[in-house]
């Protein structure tokens, strides 16, 4: 990296503009954390003050207490993340392998159908799906939120297929000549090379489950089965928008795992998002 004073003027202007924008993008999050550490009275000062007169760490345990089932919500969310990540990894990998590396009649037509399902908005089909789970007696349980991921997601099948198509085929051919069947080829030759894309799919699914709101809202009826996202919404509507220091502490706690996950997987993650928009 070049030192500042060697930069051409255009780039200096660029950095100034970016710094201003970065301040604007960071301000809401900084405000969230700042509010979460204030005494209630200081959330109501005009003009607002950024630094609390004394840092109120106890807002966090207080917010957890006020949410009631905070640890249950966290447990439910984590359990769902675990199950949905496992479900989508297994099922989408199998389907993607079938679409990418095997030749069979009708394959491309079925794959187009798979892509077409991405066009259907969930709200348009949620009534019959709700009816289906109601008949199975699953309403009020976590099952409607994880069982479907064991039946592959079109988006993840698409991502994995793109990656499988790009892998060299010679190792697989050699294994086939040695008498390996397709399951062994997938397990021993394809999957070891596919670790980055599997991580991307796992992270995407984790985020989708952690963030999901509409699903838990329609399927979950008992507070003790709520996920964190639904629990936070229910906490917010009980508070009626007064105890902002507690609400911001609770929001910070819900965002935190996502931020941690991002920093640990940053490179793979950013590349994963970039490939979704790639024209190849």
């Amino acid at each position, binding site marked *: 990296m070049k030192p500042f004073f060697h*930069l051409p003027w255009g*780039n200096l202007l*660029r*950095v100034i503009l*970016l710094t201003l924008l970065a301040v604007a*993008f*960071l301000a*809401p999050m900084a*405000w969230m954390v700042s509010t979460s550490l204030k005494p209630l009275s200081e959330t109501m000062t005009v003009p*607002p003050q950024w630094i609390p007169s004394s840092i109120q760490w106890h807002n966090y345990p207080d917010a957890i207490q006020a949410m009631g089932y905070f640890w249950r919500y966290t447990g439910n969310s984590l359990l769902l993340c675990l199950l949905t990540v496992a479900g989508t990894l*297994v*099922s989408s990998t*199998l*389907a993607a392998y*079938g*679409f990418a590396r*095997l*030749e*069979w*009649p*009708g394959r491309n037509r079925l794959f187009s159908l*798979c892509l077409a399902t991405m*066009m*259907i908005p*969930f*709200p*348009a*089909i*949620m*009534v*019959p*799906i*709700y*009816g*289906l789970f109601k008949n199975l007696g699953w309403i009020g349980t976590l099952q409607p939120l994880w069982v479907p991921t*064991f*039946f*592959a997601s079109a988006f993840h099948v698409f991502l994995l297929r793109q990656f499988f198509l790009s892998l060299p085929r010679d190792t697989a051919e050699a294994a086939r000549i040695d008498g390996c069947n397709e399951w062994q080829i997938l397990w021993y030759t394809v999957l070891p090379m596919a670790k980055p894309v599997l991580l991307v799919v796992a992270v995407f699914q984790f985020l989708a489950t952690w963030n999901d709101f*509409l699903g838990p809202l329609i399927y979950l009826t008992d507070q003790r089965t709520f996920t964190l*996202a*639904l629990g936070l*919404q229910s906490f*917010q*509507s009980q508070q009626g*928008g007064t105890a902002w220091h507690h*609400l*911001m502490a*609770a*929001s910070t706690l*819900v*965002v935190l795992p996502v*931020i941690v996950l*991002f920093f640990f997987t*940053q490179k793979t993650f*950013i590349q994963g*998002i970039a*490939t*979704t*928009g790639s*024209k190849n």
Partner: protein
Amino acid sequence: MGRTMSAADLRRLGTGFMFIAPWLVGFLALSLYPFLSSLYLSTCDYSVLAPAVWIGPENYTALSRDPIFWKAAGNTVLFAMVSVPLGLVLSFCLALLLNAEIPARGFFRTVFFLPSLMPLVCLAVLWLWLLNGDLGLVNACLRPGLQTLNDLFGWHLSPPNWLQDPRFALAGLVLTGIWGVGHPMVIFLAGLQEVPRHLYESADIDGASRWQKLRHITLPMLSPVIYFNGIMALIGCFQVFAVPYVMTEGGDGPERSLLFLATYLYQHAFEYWNMGYACAIGLFLFALILGLTLVASRISSRHVHYEGA
């Protein structure tokens, strides 16, 4: 299919189906069946608690005369028409700014990207607080600026009470969405880095200006990415639900200014148990998304440049 399959074909078909079986079952049970069922239920009186009764196109005629439905549809279209172009322009500009050798580039990218990771419920709760009329940070930033204008021109401007004001509620929601442009920005940035250097180099030799290079190289080369981001944003905006739902505590905002198609569908399905009507709204939403995507792909086939195609 006219030809008969050989034994080898059949065996390959069998292996293929074994691998895609999870998807196939999911497709039949969780996409095709609900879609067809939704088509049928939209012509029924159905409450989940009792069997559906066929009533013909009645739900659709009722829908066409339902002013609240049209309000929801209007809000949804307006929200998408404002948010999608604004988000595309902003994310593209951010990507252009970042696409240079500058110090702390990774830091800037992370800063712009992070907000897009916010769970929607957190996003809604946070912006409810930021857009608070009296105590919110947004108005705290606006107040000094407006005060200066008032002093200079003798105006009487005061910052709006965003989500409590029917004229500003939708704008507040757009602002909330704009904060999440980091996701398309990352996709644009990747696209920018794929543009071959030599195109710019030969343009430099020809004495092309910065603007000409943007207009004649960057934009055409990036058109598939612009199209992709546009379609994704469009599909997302048309399904907007969680953020306005949380912000209005399950309501629809002042004078229904935060009522959207997905919200109205949810209300009919799970608050009035009027599920046939809800299915009709859902199919309208599907048709809207499908129609706009087809229009976009028609336009794109004229303007989108695929290299080597």
